[in-house]
């Protein structure tokens, strides 16, 4: 079972609670809420703060701060008259590296940044100073890519969880963001501060009502609406709740507590703590899926596909499958809810002594039957372009889930037989992903070309694993 963060936090972005809590009652209250959140963190056994900051935009992929000890004196570009913020931050460089690797494994463009004087954003600095004075915990900070949308941001959280789990960290997840982000465009006196409009205020209260009830995924699913209703469109999408909800496995029954909600120069500033303990509320139905690997957004600017063909490709990846079966259940079978359902009467895996035999595993996603990287043909059976690397990554991810269910991991694999439907086209890409993933653990491998597979996929693997010495 993949673990969730010990706690998840929503905290505001502006420097007022740090630099001028005495100047306005609301700013002081946010400062108190920050202090309260700090105490809550101190009572946990967390060993790292993982920060996603909406104030750190990136263009070349997702950037992860990897300098062991960033140090600077920060001045806010707007609120420079409130004073300077000297900071020194302790970074968990091992986790930064692991997250960076995990991003790449899941198809994301990723970069580490480790440069003296790198401009860490004001939101991250304020959060580190207030939640983690004296650097009691190390932190990892990730940027908010300007071109990323929901799929990419969802996967970014999953790779973060991969990294946290692989190192056995206990993490606090922190999303730095305003709720409504419309500020006053002229200087104001501190005592005149209020939420910019009644509409912004109502939306903020609705969001906080949901978060207070632990309905994080509901807020994430509302992100596009929130973006249009109460966000100044500085970037193309409102992303932080996608990240935070994916960090919490899209759950809607967390336990939430709103520690503070006040205006900062007109914007909605809130401190919220979410706990993985179930609130007992039922989960909602979602209309957006939770993908595992990123295989690119739809190529809307490309010349290869028009809207129709994109749609038919989408349709094909949902509809072309044979009937799905419940995995066969016997006393030695191993079946996982996280893996795609079989297309016949067989289990996901079967354990014989200390050997685990897996049924052939493809890239198909559980629940949605989507194929990362796209199906190999459309609804009319016409061949379409697909990404073999994304498909191969998804196969590995499905294998990992089945092994996980059996209490094993990729390291336990001893032998793999791979079936490709187009050796000439796909061997190279498949082989690259292999080298980055399974190849690291050194199982034996045989790759053969075959005419077809039962679903519109290009790669399938047959895996044998062995448990530790017994």
């Amino acid at each position, binding site marked *: 079972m993949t673990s969730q963060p010990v706690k998840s936090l929503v905290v505001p972005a502006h420097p007022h609670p740090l630099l001028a809590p005495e100047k306005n009652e609301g700013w002081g209250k946010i400062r108190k809420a920050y202090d309260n959140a700090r105490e809550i963190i101190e009572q946990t056994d967390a060993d790292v703060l993982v920060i996603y900051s909406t104030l750190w935009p990136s*263009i070349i*992929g997702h950037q992860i701060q990897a300098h062991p000890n960033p140090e600077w004196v*920060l*001045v806010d*570009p*707007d*609120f*420079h008259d409130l*004073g300077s913020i000297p900071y020194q931050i302790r970074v968990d460089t091992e986790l930064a590296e692991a997250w960076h690797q995990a991003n790449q494994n899941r198809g994301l463009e990723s970069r580490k940044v480790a440069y003296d004087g790198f401009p860490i954003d004001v939101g991250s600095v304020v959060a580190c100073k207030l939640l983690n004075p004296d650097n009691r915990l190390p932190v990892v900070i990730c940027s908010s890519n300007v071109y990323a949308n929901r799929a990419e941001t969802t996967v970014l959280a999953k790779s973060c969880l991969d990294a946290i789990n692989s190192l056995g960290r206990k993490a606090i997840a922190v999303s730095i963001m305003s709720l409504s982000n419309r500020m006053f465009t*002229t200087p104001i006196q501190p005592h005149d501060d209020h939420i910019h409009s009644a509409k912004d205020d109502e939306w903020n209260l609705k969001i906080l009502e949901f978060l207070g009830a632990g309905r994080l995924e509901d807020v994430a699913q509302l992100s596009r609406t929130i973006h249009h209703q109460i966000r100044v469109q500085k970037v193309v999408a409102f992303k932080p709740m996608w990240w935070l909800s994916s960090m919490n496995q899209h759950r809607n029954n967390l336990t939430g507590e709103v520690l503070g909600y006040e205006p900062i120069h007109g914007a909605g500033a809130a401190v919220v703590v979410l706990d993985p303990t179930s609130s007992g509320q039922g989960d909602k139905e979602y209309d957006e899926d939770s993908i595992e690997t990123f295989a690119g957004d739809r190529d809307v600017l490309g010349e290869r596909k028009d809207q129709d063909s994109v749609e038919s490709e989408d349709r094909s990846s949902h509809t072309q499958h044979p009937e799905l079966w419940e995995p066969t259940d016997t006393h030695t079978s191993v079946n996982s809810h996280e893996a795609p359902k079989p297309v016949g009467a067989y289990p996901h895996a079967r354990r014989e002594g200390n050997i685990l035999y897996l049924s052939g595993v493809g890239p198909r996603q559980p629940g949605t039957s989507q194929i990362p990287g796209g199906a190999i043909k459309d609804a009319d059976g016409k061949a379409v372009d697909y990404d073999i690397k994304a498909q191969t990554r998804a196969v590995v991810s499905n294998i990992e889930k089945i092994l996980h269910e059996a209490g094993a991991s990729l390291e336990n694999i001893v032998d793999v037989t791979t079936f490709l439907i187009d050796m000439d086209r796909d061997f190279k890409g498949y082989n690259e992903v292999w080298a980055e993933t399974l190849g690291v653990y050194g199982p034996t491998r045989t790759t053969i070309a075959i005419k077809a597979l039962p679903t519109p996929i290009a790669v399938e693997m047959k895996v044998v694993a062995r448990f530790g010495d017994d």
Partner: protein
Amino acid sequence: MAEGQIVAGLLAPHPPHLVYAENPPQNEPTSEGGWEQLRWGYERLRKSLEDVDYDCIVILSPHWQTYVGTHFLGLERFESLSVDPIFPNLFRFKYDVSVDVELSKAIHDHAKEDGMAVKMMENPDFRIDYGTITSCHMIRPEWDKPIVSISSNRGHAYYSVEVMQEMMIQLGKATRKAILESGKKCVIVASNSLSHRHFTTESEVPEDMSVEHISSHAMHLWDMRMIELMRSGKSQQIVNEMPEFVEQAIAESDGGALTWMLSVLDMPDEPAILHGYGTIIGTGNAIMEWPSRNWRENS
């Protein structure tokens, strides 16, 4: 006191790649070159300004982004390290900049009189944005002229391109008035690219020119259209087409610099000189000069 003068208006884009490729001593990362078309364009610009006498560079960069009005640097000297947040691998530049606080304050005061929200930036720890540093370095690597650095108010994000342009036209008029009253000779710099769709990946060797090209044909068409309008002195048409340009080419002129500069030059009908055009990580960049010192009705 003689009336001040605007000796030139410039469109001077600021991708740090250009500084990186020239390997000046102030910048830590080193390269094998690259983006020569643009760097030689800046060379032609420098040549053009070589014998021109001026006191100050007045620059507006989209990378000092302010949401609460327009801000002006208000201390005489800033010295620090500028690290590009997007390309920290290319740009870690030690700068030492002097500011013409008197002129800065005069523009601030005029804008304030005209009802704009303005603020002087007087915190000595403030770090000057990398756009300002890059454009100023490429224009005048000697760093011997004081600058006036003006923030980019995000009127576009808050309202629309139209509202942003109204604000920038007003700011341009205040800037012009202050300069003419000051008796100083100034170069006006709009620090921005044209089309601004980036690649989302970078090649192993950033200066590998075999992968550099415009991000799409549509972006190229927009860039050429805008350059042609500038070359034929159609300032008002540029302003008129700006909303479409910003939307369709994700143009960096959304920060207001280009509109402001044209307004400081009083929406010139005279043609601008193209010193160079090239792409940087997919974005379109033109180096242009409006040699207003040579115009009959001198600005």
